[in-house]
């Protein structure tokens, strides 16, 4: 048996080691936040958040249409991606043990591993080329395809966490299986699923690659699905690769805006998840 002293020493060493690793892992996050806030905060104003971008050579202008475009496309993507993702997740959890279920799970895994730029190319080939124009629809389709596999897996996991006892309680009342799935199982898992949806939306809002050649960009307001649409991420990219200092600062400010939007979604998700755990069964 080790002496108390050496045990204490080992304990101290391990604590220090873990502390150092945590600190190192936090450095990139802290530096991102610090850089973005330092360079971007100065340029954020009401005008910046609501105005159209200024033409080349003029100062001023903002990212109003880009914010609207991001929200619009993420919303369109959610309209299709959320029901499909959750539906697939319910199927996998309830009927996923057969050959069809295994196939679907395998496909979801593969789809989840496809780089987002490849999804963008597919949306370009399937929607942009036949329509002969870049469009919000193509961008949203790419984002939806990215959402579906993550949502399906998250939904499946949340549903599998629902105790068998609850499902059996419902079935023992003579409630049909489909009704049990919807009204008891899905309802119990809902908190976790909503959290997963918010996280998926946050991820979609941060995607650039699949939007570059699907939604492209737009200097003006657009809420028509068949038109090119601006987004915060592509706008950041355009500002950042420009040769103008004023635009570089706008890139930082737009990045900060995006960070705040995504952060807000994440915080809401955490808050919902926390509330769910407190309300959950003992």
């Amino acid at each position, binding site marked *: 048996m080790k002496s108390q002293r050496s045990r204490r020493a080992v304990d101290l060493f391990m604590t220090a080691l873990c502390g150092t690793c945590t600190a190192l892992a936090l450095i990139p996050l802290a530096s991102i936040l610090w850089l973005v806030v330092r360079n971007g905060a100065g340029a954020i104003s009401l005008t910046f958040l609501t105005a159209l971008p200024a033409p080349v050579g003029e100062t001023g202008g903002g990212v109003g249409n880009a914010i609207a475009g991001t929200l619009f496309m993420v919303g369109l993507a959610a309209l299709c991606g959320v029901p499909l993702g959750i539906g697939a997740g319910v199927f996998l959890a309830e009927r996923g*043990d057969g050959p069809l279920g295994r196939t679907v799970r395998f496909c979801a895994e593969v789809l989840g591993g496809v780089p987002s730029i490849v999804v963008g190319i597919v949306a370009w080939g399937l929607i942009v080329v036949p329509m002969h124009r870049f469009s919000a629809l193509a961008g949203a389709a790419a984002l939806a395809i990215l959402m579906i596999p993550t949502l399906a897996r998250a939904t499946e996991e949340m549903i599998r966490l629902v*105790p068998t*006892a*609850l499902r*059996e*309680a*419902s*079935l*023992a*009342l*003579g*409630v*049909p*299986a489909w*009704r*049990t799935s919807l*009204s*008891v199982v899905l*309802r*119990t898992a*809902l908190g976790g699923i909503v959290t997963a949806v918010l996280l998926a939306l946050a991820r979609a809002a941060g995607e650039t690659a699949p939007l570059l050649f699907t939604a492209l960009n737009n200097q003006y307001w657009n809420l028509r699905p068949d038109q090119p649409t601006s987004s915060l991420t592509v706008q950041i990219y355009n500002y950042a690769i420009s040769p103008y200092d004023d635009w570089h600062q706008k890139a930082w400010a737009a990045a900060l805006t995006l960070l705040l939007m995504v952060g807000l979604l994440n915080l809401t998700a955490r808050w919902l998840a926390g509330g769910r755990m407190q*309300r*959950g*069964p*003992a």
Partner: protein
Amino acid sequence: MSERSKLEVRHLTAWFGKTAAIKDVSLSVPAHTVLAIIGPSGCGKSTFIRCLNRMHELTAGTRVEGSVLIEGEDLYARGVDPVFIRRRVGMVFQRPNVFPTMSIRENVLAGLRLNGVRGDHASILEDTLRRTALWDEVKDRLDESAVRLSGGQQQRLCIARAIAVEPEVLLMDEPASALDPIATARIEELIGELKQGYTIVIVTHNMQQAVRISDDTAFFYLGELVEHGPTKQIFTTPRVPRTEDYVTGKFG
């Protein structure tokens, strides 16, 4: 087979994969009586009652042979929908399993609402909560989450939920195993009252409880029905030595 049999089990064998947890069991339960199922842990009591409302088949890899008749109709006949069987044969589980997302009111009415049964829900709610001796404790907090209730209250809520849909037969798997003596006494009292309207099959580990509440007792051992008869006879003059050993506490 007597005509007054509510339940009639014939040569029932229940499998988990390749092992039989219940082996060739036959017995009958007259209407408006309480049958107690006793036996050591793992002897197949839960498995047996789960065969009586077709819950056994929900576990993957299980199989049932033989037949179970409710008023002469075979539960396991071809084309019988287990959903309708479960509306006639209700079940209370060993551990309380209230729906955590639902209020007390919604829990009691869950079976009616989820099955789209119309009717005077308000009076059904009050009536079932009174019968389960919960009304006075919860009447002012019907819309609170059911998980805020104590374990014993939750179990009585589960009984209320099961009887709100008015089944003909009520299966109870050790409903009082997690309860204190007072809550247990209430549930035993309730079973006595419920007997007027229902036929009850109850699993219990508590010999005194079996004596207090049941008309008949069935003793299971290693998946076989060792002895079945009037409770008084099983506990005073058992015919099989193994039954005597068990009820006198020599093993199990």
